[in-house]
């Protein structure tokens, strides 16, 4: 108990003494962790869009009503046997309706006014080889309609085929560029934050070299000397993380929530999504603190 009290008293004294440096370290940690969180949120948002647009499959084969069970079994087996196909999942009308309701739950105009019957049953196909897509259309005897660009099929029971490959490719390209761009900036900022925190610790140790000298002389252990500085680094990183998390929630409330309802088809991240990335921000903050601590106190490692 007394030891813990000692550590925190020393840590608080250290941060106070080193105010401006500690502030700089905390702000950089904050910006870095905010950008890191932003990158994760952007990735989540785009995944939501992909889910909304494609249902996370590459090709959807819609079935015409009424759906006959024997047609379902036969077509599923046949599709599965195609070498281009990795997996085929059947989604009946109820499941399609439930998925649509969940997708548009923020948009009651759609969920309340569109009856379940209009959602068609479908096979949701993931391709083993996207280039071999033609195998599916050939098997189902489909032709692109020159006027509507829909792909209609003459196979009995099949309504039409939707090809999401192109959209998926483009969306994932956008995701990659956006997320990697922000992640790159975040990594640069995280490195700066680490260096700044390490430097703060080092300056703190320099300012207190006389105390440290006496501590060594009277037989204080290495850890007794170092732990207050390690806690100082951890506190600075965690303050940055807390500010970053708060700011991300503010962004969600004041930016994302303002868009909600204005763009009807666009699903948006919710509080749960922000909450889900907070562990990653805390892990990144801990990483900053550990690396900074290791670098910052290395000069004082020897007794």
């Amino acid at each position, binding site marked *: 108990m007394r030891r813990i009290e000692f550590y925190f008293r020393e840590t608080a004294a250290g941060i106070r003494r080193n105010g401006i440096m500690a502030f700089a370290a905390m702000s950089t940690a904050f910006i870095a962790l905010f950008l890191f969180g932003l990158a994760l949120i952007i990735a989540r948002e785009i995944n939501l869009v992909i889910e909304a647009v494609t249902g996370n499959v590459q090709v959807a084969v819609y079935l015409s009503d009424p759906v006959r069970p024997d047609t379902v079994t036969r077509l599923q087996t046949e599709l599965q046997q195609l070498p281009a196909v990795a997996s085929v999942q059947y989604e009946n009308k109820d499941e399609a309706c439930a998925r649509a309701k969940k997708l548009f739950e923020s948009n009651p105009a759609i969920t309340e006014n569109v009856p379940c019957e209009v959602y068609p049953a479908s096979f949701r196909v993931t391709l083993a080889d996207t280039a071999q897509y033609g195998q599916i259309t050939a098997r189902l005897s489909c032709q692109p309609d020159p006027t509507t660009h829909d792909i209609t099929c003459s196979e009995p029971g099949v309504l039409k085929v939707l090809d999401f490959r192109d959209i998926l490719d483009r969306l994932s390209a956008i995701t990659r560029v956006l997320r990697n761009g922000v992640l790159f900036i975040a990594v640069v900022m995280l490195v700066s934050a680490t260096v700044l925190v390490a430097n703060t610790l080092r300056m703190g140790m320099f300012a207190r070299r006389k105390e440290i000298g*006496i501590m060594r*002389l009277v037989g204080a*252990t290495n850890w*007794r*000397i170092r732990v207050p500085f390690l806690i100082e680094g951890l506190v600075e990183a965690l303050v940055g993380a807390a500010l970053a998390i708060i700011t991300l929630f503010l962004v969600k409330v004041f930016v994302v929530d303002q868009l909600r309802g204005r763009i009807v088809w666009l699903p948006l991240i919710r509080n749960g999504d922000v909450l889900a990335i907070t562990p990653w921000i805390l892990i990144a903050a801990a990483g900053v603190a550990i690396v900074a601590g290791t670098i910052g106190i290395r000069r004082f490692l020897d*007794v």
Partner: protein
Amino acid sequence: MISLQNVTKTYKNGVTALEAVSIEIEKGEFVFVVGPSGSGKSTTLRLLLREEEPSMGEVFVAGKNVVRLSSLGGIPKLRRNIGCVFQDFKLLQDKTVFENVSFALEVIGKPKHVIDARVPEILDYVGLGDKLNNYPDELSGGEQQRVSIARACVNRPLVLLADEPTGNLDPNTSVDIMRLLDKVNKIGTTVVMATHDQAIVDAMRKRVIELDHGKVVRDQSRGVYS
């Protein structure tokens, strides 16, 4: 209590500070280490504290081979058994007399009731029982050195190392400090004092070890400075 066996210390820059030095000091002895600047006095004290390692030979303090001690536990434990006093006192200016002494116990994890009992006791012992709440810059040089001796002794060390403890003090104050060190010695603490102060060495008539160019040139019980 202290044993240097054939110790040679050569620093990285090639300077040989000690050459084949062997010294035995018994428990409870009072020993002066004298010699001109650069003769190896400070190096000897630093070896005992394990602030330096010998290039050759062995150093024993309180039965422990200090070279073999680990920096994790062994070296701090060794230093808890050694008190240190310096020419420049090494007091923390932003702490009171009480806090300067209690700091030494606090950082080795002593519980509060021990600190509250021992710190006033030792400050009383060195004659500063009425100055607990003063800051170092409010004290005379002699008083500051007493605080530093109190800090060195508060954990009841087996050995007290003093590096020119009277170097910054006038002759009368120096005599007072020597009386105090003698008092500390009388209660069983082994005292090793490096000094230039001829008058003090001559007056005390204790064992004198003289170093010159890193070698022991004289080891005399009840000796004088030169």
